[in-house]
């Protein structure tokens, strides 16, 4: 065969393979979810797990800058006094136990003995005091958590007493969230956490020890042989994060077995495909994150309750979720997340779809239809990544049916933040955002002047109730305040809650005790891999 013929043949084969692969792919309508692992197997320790990550961390200091990627890596290298599990429970992490004083002001945490940092130095209560005081001093991401702390005392090496100025129900949960890790004073003192020292080699008490960071490529950790919850834990020898920005590439790496955990959220179609594959367990987890539609209450016709009511009952959430958000959302039923169901008033539910009622509300606005049959033309501002573009398209068609012409304005987050959150230059917007780990974290969204209250909603009673609710500790004492807020929100409708953000995480069947699995989801944090193991290495 001469070169000319060989070349032609090669090109033909390559093109044919491209066409075949592009057009191929399994299709299935089996949407069963498998969120359990079935029979408990004997643990096989060892092996290095490879996990995908969209972008690399911007800091290696877990208490410095806000960084969602470091938020995933930090629980492997460091410990917190408390942690928040996948089910939303606040459980002890480094602390063995804790007590709350009768006046709800003093938390006493008891630390285990003989805990060592990864550099071999002992961890004492002074390191806890140093970490929390330094977070405030350095302006770390969780500085606000300690704003109302009166004192931090260390009666002995294994006891820390934190006293607040006022009771604060959200405080314990905040000690289990991001940015409150215990750092060794002898390593982190005198360093600029938010500046160039942010990339200093991490030293903590977590189940793993920092190994290597190749910028743009990977970050790896290895087993901490002195882990205080040992000697068996962690089961894995190490974990490596591989930075893969493109979701489709990460998906192919995952399906090819190059990644043990994909790490990025696959597209809806790919999620369904993986859910149907018996080689994967697909864990479904609900977070305290919600999708909602907000109105610019300073503008007409959005300041008219009839218009807001029309939108609220004009949106068919079931249809919206089926068409655009099936693998990331479940329908919302109440004004607070189901994870805080104690705060919801059972008598106050979210508006249900009712086209006839929507038409009545639109008539009541006093607006008149134009030649195209629309009462008004509005703009819907949203983000440029899924599910928001698909959501917006469905909302556009649903609202057109009740006479509202929607023009979609999709933006990257930075532009959305400037136009909507800062400049208040929008009509309606649809967002998805985390509202936890405590129910009081809904305050910035609905109280006067709140950081996320881009609607400019203001109701003195809501402000007062949210403040009162946050100042109590027991759920039964707090519930009446939040339940009253539900009633007011139902009347004022500053937002239309669409649903709860859920994550479908496909994990190969050879991975056991994944943090979202039934076996451990009630006792470890969502990124804590200390009990995870693989039977295929």
């Amino acid at each position, binding site marked *: 065969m001469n070169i000319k013929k060989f070349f032609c043949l090669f090109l033909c084969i390559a093109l044919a393979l491209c066409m075949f*692969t592009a057009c191929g792919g399994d299709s299935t309508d089996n949407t069963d979810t498998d969120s359990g692992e079935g029979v408990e197997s004997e643990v096989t320790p060892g092996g290095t797990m*490879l996990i995908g990550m969209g*972008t690399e961390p911007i800091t290696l200091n877990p208490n410095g800058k806000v960084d969602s990627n470091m938020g995933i890596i930090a629980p492997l290298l460091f410990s917190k006094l408390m942690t928040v599990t996948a089910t939303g429970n606040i459980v002890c992490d480094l602390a063995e136990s804790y007590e709350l004083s009768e006046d709800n002001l003093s938390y006493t945490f008891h630390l285990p003995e003989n805990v060592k940092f990864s550099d071999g130095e002992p961890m004492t209560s002074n390191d806890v005091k140093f970490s929390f005081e330094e977070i405030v001093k350095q302006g770390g991401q969780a500085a*606000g958590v300690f704003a109302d702390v009166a004192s931090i005392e260390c009666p002995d090496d294994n006891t820390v007493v934190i006293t607040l100025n006022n009771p604060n129900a959200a405080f314990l949960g905040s000690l289990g969230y991001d940015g409150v890790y215990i750092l060794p004073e002898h390593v982190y003192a005198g360093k600029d956490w938010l*500046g*160039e020292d*942010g990339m200093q080699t991490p030293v903590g008490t977590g189940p793993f020890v920092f190994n290597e960071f190749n910028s743009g490529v990977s970050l790896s950790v290895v087993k901490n042989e002195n882990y205080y919850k040992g000697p068996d834990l962690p089961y894995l020898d190490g974990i490596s994060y591989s930075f*893969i920005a*493109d979701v489709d590439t990460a998906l192919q790496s995952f399906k090819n077995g190059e990644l043990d955990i994909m790490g990025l959220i696959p597209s809806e179609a790919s999620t369904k495909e993986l859910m149907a594959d018996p080689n994967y367990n697909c864990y479904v987890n609900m977070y305290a994150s919600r999708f909602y539609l907000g109105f610019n209450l300073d503008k007409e016709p959005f300041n008219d309750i009839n218009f807001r009511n029309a939108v609220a009952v004009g949106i068919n959430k079931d249809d919206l979720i089926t068409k655009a958000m099936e693998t990331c959302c479940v329908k919302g039923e109440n004004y607070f997340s189901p994870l805080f169901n104690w705060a919801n008033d059972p008598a106050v539910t979210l508006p249900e779809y009712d086209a006839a009622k929507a038409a009545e509300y639109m008539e009541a606005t006093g607006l008149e239809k134009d030649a195209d049959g629309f009462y008004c033309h509005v703009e819907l501002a949203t983000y440029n990544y899924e599910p928001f573009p698909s959501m917006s398209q469905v909302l556009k068609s649903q609202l057109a049916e009740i006479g509202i012409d929607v023009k979609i304005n999709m933006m990257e987050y*930075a532009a959305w933040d400037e136009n909507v959150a800062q400049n208040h230059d929008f009509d309606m917007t649809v967002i998805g955002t985390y509202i936890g780990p405590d129910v009081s974290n809904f305050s910035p969204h609905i109280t006067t002047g709140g950081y996320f209250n881009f609607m400019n909603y203001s109701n003195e009673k809501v402000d007062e109730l949210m403040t009162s609710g946050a100042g109590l500790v027991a759920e039964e004492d707090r519930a009446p305040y939040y339940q009253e807020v539900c009633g007011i929100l139902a009347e004022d409708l500053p937002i239309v809650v669409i649903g709860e953000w859920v994550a479908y995480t496909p994990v190969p069947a050879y991975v056991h005790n994944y943090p979202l699995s039934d076996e451990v989801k009630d006792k470890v944090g969502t990124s804590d891999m200390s009990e995870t193991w693989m039977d295929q290495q």
Partner: protein
Amino acid sequence: MKSYLGKRIVTAVLCVFLALLFNFIIIHAAPGNPIRILAGTDSVNEEMIAELTQKYGLDQPAYIQFFRYVGNLFKGDMGVSIYTGQPVADEIISKLGPTLLLCLTSSIIALILGTLLGIFCARHVGSALDSFLGSISYLFDSTPSFWLGLMLILVFASTLHLFPTAGMFNVRQNAEGFARVVDVLYHLVLPSTALSLTLIPYYFRIARTSVIQVGNEDFITTLRGAGMREDRIYRKYVFRNAILPVVTVFGIQLAYIVSGSAIVEIVFSWPGMGSYMMTAISRRDYPTLMGIYLVISISVAVMMIVVDVVYTYLDPRISRSEGK
């Protein structure tokens, strides 16, 4: 020649400064505030935003920020990233290596293959292979690089399992020494193929056109009339004259490819300047973006001068005309 070079360097410095100014205006005019993105959405408040804004000097008027930046550049300081807190110069240097490896490999492959195929087709104008390669060149020219990259992954990584899907080396094995070199080359195959396939059409068409053009020049006809052998005419006269436009394109493309390879780098998770730039854009990391654009501007300016110098060596007529 020296005065010509001097003039070119002065012009290049001016161009780089204007590019810097233009980029500064564009970056700051784009909606989005890096501090608000940095602060995130948890436990954030206006006091924190104000403090961070002051810390990074973004509370100053834009013109002060610009002149302060330029002043620092003269001291060799490209600033620190708002996000990582690391010196921008260090970060760019660490990203340049992988980008240059990918870009140079792809450009050289594209230059050689594209030019050879172009010359081959120019000598067989109208043949079936000429028509076929011409069509293929348009096909690859119009194919989005991300799609091409994904197709290569689907065929050669997912279906045939011949090459890895992404990355620069095998993170699980983390080989060292010569094994690492082999591993990097192995990972380089698919991204460089994707990038080469999008570049080959340029060289192919330019080489083909310019060989045909030179082949139709009067002096070539004279040589033919004088009875010189066709192979000798092409080797000695046509190729030497036809190579000039290819060299120009190669030089210019090499300068632009640093930013142009961004999509391929993202698709294959290649840890270079491209993906670094895209992340900086989405985060509005002003110092990082200014640093990247500065490097791109300088590389374009330098490559233009290099191309001109190389040109004068390849074609003595140019240096003579410059001398007049």
